């Protein structure tokens, strides 16, 4: 059974996401030693110099979504099931850095679909409690593990359907974030496909560094970051970094 990592990467006018992805890929190779496939566009591919040893799939990304008055190319993730060449896939955000091999355990399991339903805020403030922002529990599409199976296919197909009718589903689930967001799209898809008791999640919190924490440097085993005028560090722990300035670190 083939196993691998799938990444989406589209540069924007403001951010060279491929620079973030380079760090992500080097950590995947070092700590997970899995095959990697990158879904990208022609523009990003031509700017990206370290594409050796990665498979690439070139697509024209969907446009139209914006966040903070900037382009937000996040509309293609629902096609991950169709595009993944692997039987078991880890679908990762490029700003998720694997400093451990913990994710390999999930590929050893027989679950059809796993996603995070809780976050650990590494600055200790528990910023990500969105219980009042919708009538269904939030999930986090930063890390998804799926197996080629009827159930996983139906979840991704439901995300496509939700994307096509996003405003309707936002009203239905009273979601107050009106721009398309994969986290909510997957939360709604899981709710549509499965009763609560049939949903399966990663049994750990997603370690996340909030946007107001600035990464100072990348080390072999973790990152140093500045928060509240202090330098702090994380070692031997996977981390999802929200501050996109890491492209320039």
């Amino acid at each position, binding site marked *: 059974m083939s196993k691998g990592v799938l990444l989406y990467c589209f540069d924007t006018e403001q951010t060279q996401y491929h620079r973030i992805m380079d760090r992500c890929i080097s950590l995947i190779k070092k700590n997970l030693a899995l095959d990697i496939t990158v879904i990208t566009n022609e523009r990003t591919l031509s700017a990206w110099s370290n594409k050796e040893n990665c498979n690439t799939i070139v697509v024209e990304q969907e446009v139209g979504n914006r966040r903070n008055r900037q382009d937000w190319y996040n509309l293609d993730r629902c096609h991950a099931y169709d595009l993944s060449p692997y039987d078991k896939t880890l679908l990762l955000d490029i700003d998720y850095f694997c400093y451990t091999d*913990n994710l390999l355990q999930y590929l050893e399991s027989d679950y059809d679909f796993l996603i995070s339903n809780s976050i650990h805020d590494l*600055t*200790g403030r528990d910023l990500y409690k969105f219980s009042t922002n919708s009538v269904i529990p939030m999930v986090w599409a930063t890390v998804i593990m799926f197996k080629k199976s009827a159930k996983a296919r139906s979840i991704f197909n439901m995300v496509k359907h939700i994307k096509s009718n996003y405003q309707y589903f936002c009203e239905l689930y009273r979601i107050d974030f009106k721009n398309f967001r994969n986290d909510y799209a997957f939360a709604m898809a899981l709710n549509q496909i499965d009763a609560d008791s049939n949903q399966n999640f990663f049994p*750990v919190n997603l370690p996340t560094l909030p946007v107001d924490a600035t990464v100072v440097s990348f080390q072999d085993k973790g990152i140093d970051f500045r928060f509240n005028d202090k330098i702090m560090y994380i070692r*031997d722990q996977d981390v999802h970094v929200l501050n996109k300035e890491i492209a320039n670190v």
Partner: protein
Amino acid sequence: MSIESLKQYADLSFDRALAKKNALERAESRQIMAYRDHLFRADPETICLVKTLQEQKQFYMLDTNKNPCLIDNPAEFLSLLIERNQESLNAYHQLHQTLKQKRV
């Protein structure tokens, strides 16, 4: 004690608490292990249950998502659980020692 040193002490206390919280989270992440296609947490509760039931040749356990899994080699499973548990706690212990040595 001056206000300045009180503030330093409070800052250090907060930093230490945060470092401990992050280290515990790291240890808990490390305790997750796959066994027979299921996911288990190598925590004291799981270890104690397997230890309690190990005299039976086989038994069922719930994994981290409350799905049942047949355990037909309790000795092997227990050994893997203990190994994973101690690996995660050893790393946590090292960080804990470092935190204890920090002073204002």
